[in-house]
């Protein structure tokens, strides 16, 4: 494996870490307004209270690694998606401060405003992540100068929007399973119902998005011809998804959560397979018989940093990751078990 591929895979690993971890806390945010009383809402927020910040660091590190390993992709995507990324940043800002501020005062209007902001920001952020993934799979107008040649509205095509809604469905399901794990009593019983609903929504969106992708985005499946073993991931993904309702029915939420983690990992893998060896696919000046323009597209070679930098970064990653995994494990172990509201809670 050369260093370029190594960094493509590492970015994928960071994305898997982010999607699984921040996925459930974004999901809790999406479901937040479903909680009825103030206590329930505090339980929701405190179920992710100690964890969400560390989860978001996966995104920050993904961004830093993308900047360092593939600076051209970083530059093209972020300047091209300008307004979309600004919206995403505002959503992430509001999410962070809503959690911090919400329970600091008693007023109904105060708490209600931050509840709405928390839910809206979580939903918007998830939708935008999905839209970004959808655009990346579908391909974007990128010119020979590596610059984005479209507008903000070009990003909101039907396919990206469908992927965006799919992402909302997936994280809502992931979040509901997480909440089931962290709650007790009547609230937990109600969340049991939510798991069914969110799973149903997810299943519909999964089937729809899959069909849409197969029909509309042929380049997304081209790698399956060269790498037939990738079908194995598809197969395992279907098994993982099928295991979710089984585990919910059997009241084994731990297995349901594990299954939804696995299927999120599988989706990120499929995203990677759809792109490889490209990171940004150009839809400008497409030759007859092709579905994208390989010359204008940014791949893991023409957009990368120098070998030396990729090497240094690999050393940094190998030095740092054991620490990161160790303290992630410590934190999750410390805050295991059901949510208990105490005087240090939000």
């Amino acid at each position, binding site marked *: 494996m050369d260093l370029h591929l190594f960094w493509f895979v590492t970015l994928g690993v960071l994305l898997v870490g982010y999607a699984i971890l921040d996925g459930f806390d974004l999901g809790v945010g999406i479901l937040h307004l479903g909680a009825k009383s103030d206590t329930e809402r505090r339980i929701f927020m405190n179920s992710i*209270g*100690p*964890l969400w*910040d*560390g989860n*978001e*660091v996966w*995104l*920050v*590190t993904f*961004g*830093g*690694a993308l*900047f*360092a*390993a*593939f600076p*051209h992709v*970083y*530059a*093209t*995507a*972020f*300047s091209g*998606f*300008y*307004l979309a*990324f*600004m919206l995403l*940043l505002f959503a992430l*800002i*509001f999410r*962070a*401060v809503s*959690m*911090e*501020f919400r329970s*600091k*005062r008693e007023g109904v209007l105060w708490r209600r405003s931050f509840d709405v902001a928390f839910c809206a920001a979580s939903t918007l952020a998830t939708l935008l992540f999905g839209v970004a993934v959808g655009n990346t799979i579908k391909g974007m107008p990128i010119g020979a100068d590596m*610059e984005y040649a479209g507008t*903000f509205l070009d990003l909101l095509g039907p396919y990206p929007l469908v992927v965006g809604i799919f992402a909302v469905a997936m994280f809502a399901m992931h979040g509901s399973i997480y909440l089931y794990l962290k709650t007790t009593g009547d609230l937990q019983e109600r969340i049991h119902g939510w798991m069914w609903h969110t799973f149903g929504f997810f299943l519909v969106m999964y089937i729809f998005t899959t069909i849409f992708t197969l029909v509309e985005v042929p380049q997304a499946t081209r790698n399956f011809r060269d790498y037939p073993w990738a079908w194995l991931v598809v197969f395992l993904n279907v098994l993982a998804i099928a295991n979710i309702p089984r585990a919910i029915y059997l009241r084994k939420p731990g297995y349901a959560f594990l299954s939804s983690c696995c299927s999120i990992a599988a989706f990120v893998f499929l995203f990677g397979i759809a792109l490889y060896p490209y990171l940004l696919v150009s839809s400008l000046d497409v030759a007859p018989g092709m579905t994208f323009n390989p010359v204008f597209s940014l791949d893991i070679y023409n957009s990368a*940093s*120098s070998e*030396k*930098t990729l090497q*240094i*970064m690999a050393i*940094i990653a190998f030095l*740092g990751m054991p*620490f*990161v995994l160790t*303290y*992630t494990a*410590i934190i999750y172990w*410390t*805050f295991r078990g059901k949510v*208990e509201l*105490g005087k*240090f*809670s939000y």
Partner: protein
Amino acid sequence: MDETALLLSRIQFAFTIGFHYLFPPLTIGLGLLMVIMEGLFLWTKEHQYEAMAKFWTKIFALIFAMGVASGIVMEFQFGTNWSYYSRFVGDVFGSALAAEGIFAFFLESGFLAILVFGWDKVRPPMHFFSTLMVSLGSIFSAVWIIIANSWQQTPAGHHLVTSASGFTRAEIVDFWQLVFNPSTIERLTHTLVGAFIAGAFLVLSVSAFYLLRNRHQDFARRSIAIALPFAAVFSLLALLTGHSNGVMIAKHQPGKLAAFEGHFTTQEGGTPLYLVGVPNVAERRVDYGLAIPGALSFLVHGDWTTPVTALDDPAIVPGGLPAGEAIEDYWPPIHLSFQSYHIMVGLGMFFIALTLFSLLQWWRGKLFEQRWLLWIFVFGIAGPLIANQLGWIAAEVGRQPWIVWGLLKTRDGISPTVSAIDVGISIGLFGLIYLLLLAVWLFVLDSKIRHGPEDPADLEREFKARRGWILAAAAVRTDPSQSSYTDAHGPKPGDPR
């Protein structure tokens, strides 16, 4: 080139980073003070120190949240508004940023969870360890950011490579030269010292307020006893690190130092140091100036007569002044550089005077009676916040017109596809949102401060109760007949305290 987009992008960057930079210095400084307070608690077992650690943790969490929320903008803004710059420096600059994520952010945000939510979940030594790790994480974060920024000021360890498509960028040759580039150590020490002063002044401000309001007397006195010597030591160190910075800048960025000092014309003999003044760019002199003859020469060269490079010297242009270009085009904005630098230095002198005078009063046993002095401390927190902002402005504005010193001009670093309208919309939204957040944040912070710390007597009772429970739980492990305790999440009503 869209001049409006360029201007707006510069304003947006300055505004968003200025807002962000209100918070990290406070958390860096406060974090270290919390380590001291909690360490004292473990050492002395006095619950007043526990009350201090807990109170400041709450304030810390509030500040940290704002730092995180506004900080995520920073990382992505390079790509959104400065895409050409990102392509140019990614090979060098990106690895420092990625290292910050791996080495600092995970550490900081991970252990923050235990710091804030873990008082009841882990034993005191583990909690203290978490506090230490959060403090260390915030310092690491400063280290990597300053490394990246210092490379922009004094690039080293790279070479320029032009690709087949004709695109030139900086590529890394020597990682350790990048890390220890000529300005890293001076800038890092000065920045950290500035952050420590900010944290100490926050503690002093709130404590002085309690003393004036006659509340939480013991808490406030002990907080001052920790924060005041801390502030005094770091104020003196700020002078020292500031001086070594000046010498470093004179050597590596002479034009920047000349702009700080309003030093337009190279002359024989010693160069004067202006304490105050208004630079007059058209006439190339400083109006209304109060100067010490030869002092700048002394600070830079160690003697009173060697001239210091001025703004009219072509040597201020890295690589030499290109033929046909005017030297003025390579001047940073002089007024802004001069005044921000001078006010920063003035504030630094004020911190030294204030803290030393207060130490003297404390030694004489009169500090807590001097109400006017306590009032100065209440509002004194503005001092380091302003000084830190001005220090950053001086450093970054003084670097202009370069975005990477001698390699890339700011105007060339911009995203070509982003229009002035796009940036205009985002600035408007940033302005609105940040204003709103700042108001809400101040409101919450104010109510936290008004609420005040917990009563150490309560903490002591809780602590004993919890220890009783831990002992009971340990007894259960050795004696199965007491298994009824295993379900208890806290002390049972009849438990001995």
